[in-house]
């Protein structure tokens, strides 16, 4: 059997088997999902990029198969999903309805592979919807307070996306009489401008929902932070990249390759504003999950900007950042999940000083945060560098300024994560917190290791990206193992950066450790300068509330004059719409499915009359 089909069967069939396996025994189920995850990764690497499966179904010609470009996203899914699954085993231990959770989890992974494999719009849409519904059910899996609203928000926006996707697909079917993605890309130039814009923008909305681009981002922070963290690492790390995948398909393959760059530039502006606002909102959060969720929105903004600008280096940077975002945000969500599991909360105002209790979690968080902030020599810097250079060399100065603002303000929440969770004054409440189980720390540490290696020798990552770029239609992709170059010929050699930093660090580490070694001692965090006041047992001077209050005061007008108004108008409109929609949304999944079917049927019926 073809490996493509095998891969899909593995996840969808495996999902069903897992359901029953968990009914029988938890241990069998745990082993099974780890095996499925690893086998999936193994099968993925066995896939021949050029293999193609054609299925004829009810008059529709469906095709499955990777191309060079979707393979790179498949790589992300294939590597991240087994790690997330392995991480999930100890993380979810003791929770109810595990069979349900893992079945949906595997469905999501399978659907993501399906989306990347899909060569025609129908199977893409089917897998897209499987992914959406499974993830929706996982979001509301925890049955917490207020989750209904979160789920509703998510499914509402997903429905908007799905409907616009569907409309676009119907339009495509009506105009070019072929549902193959490749056909649309080839014949896109032939279409009338009206159709070009309509199809493209509908597709952008459809994909943009998953990529959480600015007006459509409302669902993301809540949904990311409400799902179990083991799933969120995949949700934010890989699933949001499906939206990015679609956006690249539309912006690069359809528009840019047929000479239309203005749509992309508009999208770039949306991306930059998303980055800034996402960062600002991340700064004012008190919950680590919420912070990371907003930060995901911001990071996706960078990627969208890169795609929108559409130059060679920019798209290269966007894909690189998309891969990296999968790695570091996956790590961060895993780390926060580990903290949640071990310490019981993720609120900055409650947590403090876990560094001595959870050192491995701290190290992986540290590296992931450095990557997030884009500081050399960790890999995040490379993506940022390429993005900035591409924008500067291409003359998009204001976009660079916006992104720089977002990135500098990003240091604020980067520090917040590390300080809020791991640093500060130790608290007796967390005296007995232990390091997370090995199965949880290993995936985090592996990804952190990847980030370090990719920082100094990014060529390993550049290689598959360059291949995918060629599949996208960019010619002359050159890359070197550790040297980055922009179109003006300026370059950065990452080995020198790593060497300068590393050698100085190590030399002075030796110096500072050896000098006066006998007189150096460790004191507890209670023994601090407090103007001589000896702190009593129950005193804790940890600083966590209103952490960035001065900064909030400084940027208050931004919230007050621009964002709040837009947000309120949108929010109020959306809320009103919710009230209206609520009547249709009975909370029963079957009813929703019925709606989709009815809508699809109506569209098909009307399509002939309209076009």
């Amino acid at each position: 059997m073809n490996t493509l089909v095998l891969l899909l069967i593995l996840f969808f069939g495996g999902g069903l088997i897992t359901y029953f396996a968990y009914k029988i025994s938890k241990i069998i189920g745990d082993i099974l999902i780890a095996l499925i995850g690893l086998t999936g990764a193994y099968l993925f690497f066995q896939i021949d990029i050029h293999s193609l499966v054609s299925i004829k179904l009810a008059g529709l010609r469906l095709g499955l198969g990777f191309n060079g470009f979707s393979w790179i996203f498949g790589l992300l899914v294939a590597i991240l999903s087994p790690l997330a699954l392995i991480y999930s085993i100890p993380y979810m231990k003791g929770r109810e309805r595990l069979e349900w959770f893992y079945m949906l989890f595997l469905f999501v992974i399978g659907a993501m592979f399906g989306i990347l494999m899909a060569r025609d719009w129908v199977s893409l849409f089917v897998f897209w919807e499987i992914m959406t519904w499974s993830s929706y059910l996982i979001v509301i899996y925890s049955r917490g307070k207020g989750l209904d609203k979160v789920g509703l928000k998510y499914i509402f926006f997903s429905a908007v996306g799905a409907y616009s996707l569907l409309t676009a697909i119907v339009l495509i079917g009506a105009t070019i009489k072929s549902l193959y993605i490749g056909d649309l890309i080839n014949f896109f130039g032939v279409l009338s401008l009206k159709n070009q814009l309509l199809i493209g923008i509908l597709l952008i909305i459809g994909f943009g929902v998953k990529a959480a681009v600015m007006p459509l981002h409302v669902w993301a922070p809540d949904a990311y932070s409400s799902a179990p963290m083991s799933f969120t690492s995949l949700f934010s790390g890989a699933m949001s990249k499906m939206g990015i995948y679609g956006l690249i398909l539309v912006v690069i393959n359809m528009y840019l390759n047929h000479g239309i760059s203005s749509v992309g530039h508009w999208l770039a502006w949306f991306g930059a504003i998303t980055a800034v606002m996402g960062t600002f909102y991340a700064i004012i959060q008190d919950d680590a999950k919420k912070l990371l969720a907003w930060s995901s929105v911001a990071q996706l903004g960078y990627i969208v900007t890169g795609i929108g600008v559409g130059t060679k280096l920019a798209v290269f940077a966007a894909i690189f950042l998309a891969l990296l975002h999968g790695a570091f945000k996956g790590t961060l969500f895993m780390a926060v999940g580990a903290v949640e599991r071990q310490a019981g909360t993720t609120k900055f105002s409650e947590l403090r000083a876990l560094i001595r209790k959870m050192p491995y979690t701290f190290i992986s968080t540290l590296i992931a945060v450095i990557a997030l902030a884009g500081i050399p020599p960790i890999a995040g810097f490379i993506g940022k560098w390429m993005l900035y250079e591409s924008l500067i060399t291409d003359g998009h100065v204001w976009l660079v300024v916006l992104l720089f603002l977002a990135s500098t303000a990003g240091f604020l929440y980067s520090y917040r994560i590390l300080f809020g969770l791991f640093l500060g004054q130790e608290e007796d409440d967390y005296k007995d917190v232990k390091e997370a189980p090995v199965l949880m720390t290993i995936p985090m540490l592996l990804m952190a290791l990847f980030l370090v290696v990719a920082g100094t020798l990014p060529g390993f990552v550049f290689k598959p990206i360059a291949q995918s770029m060629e599949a996208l239609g960019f010619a002359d992709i050159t890359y070197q193992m550790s040297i980055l170059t922009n179109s003006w010929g300026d370059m950065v050699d990452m080995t020198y950066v790593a060497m300068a930093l590393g050698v100085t660090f190590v030399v002075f580490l030796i110096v500072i450790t050896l000098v006066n070694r006998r007189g150096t001692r460790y004191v507890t965090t209670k023994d601090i300068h407090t103007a001589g006041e000896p702190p009593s047992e129950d005193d804790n001077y940890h600083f966590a509330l209103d952490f960035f209050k001065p900064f909030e005061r400084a940027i208050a007008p931004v919230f007050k004059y621009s964002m709040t108004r837009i947000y309120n108008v949108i929010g109020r409109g959306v809320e009103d719409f919710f009230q209206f929609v609520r009547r249709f949304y009975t909370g029963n999944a079957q009813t929703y499915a019925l709606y989709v079917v009815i809508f699809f049927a109506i569209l098909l019926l009307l399509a002939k009359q309209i076009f």
Partner: protein
Amino acid sequence: MNYVLNDRESAKIVEFIKNFARKNSLWVLAYGTGCGAIEIPPTMTSRYDAERFSVRGAATPRQADVLLITGYLSVKTLKRVIRSYEQMQDPKYVIGFGSCTINGGMYWDSYNTIKQLDLYIPVDVYINGCMPRPEAVLAGFAKLQELIGRGQANGWRHYKENLEWYRQNQRKLIKNWKMPDYNW
């Protein structure tokens, strides 16, 4: 090589250099205990300019070298002073400032101020007067520098060696001893 490093003469030279640096860089902990603290601003600012003698302020005990006990010390403050002193990094020096630190001064019969500072923390230099004028303070610093240069300002070592005796005195006054342990 080994011979050179262990040589007493070279150890002496190293010690001389260290003492030279120490005496020419006195960072004073900004900790005003009594009314004498009002003499510190004129000492530090334009009029008397202690900085030309390499004396400058430090914000926290971790950075400071000199603890200046400016005047009377109530029992409540004593607890804080001991803690601040123990948080300072060796070598550290104490200057008792004003007659209150020497023998109680005008508070000799107060129920709540200590009469003799060197029972509780080791004092390297006393400056008498009530208040000592900034000139006297500068003279005190000069004396301290002289002692450091000769390697005789060893109050901190004395404190370490006789910790039990000091603790006994301190505990006699501070009844509710809830201080973190001083692990050397």
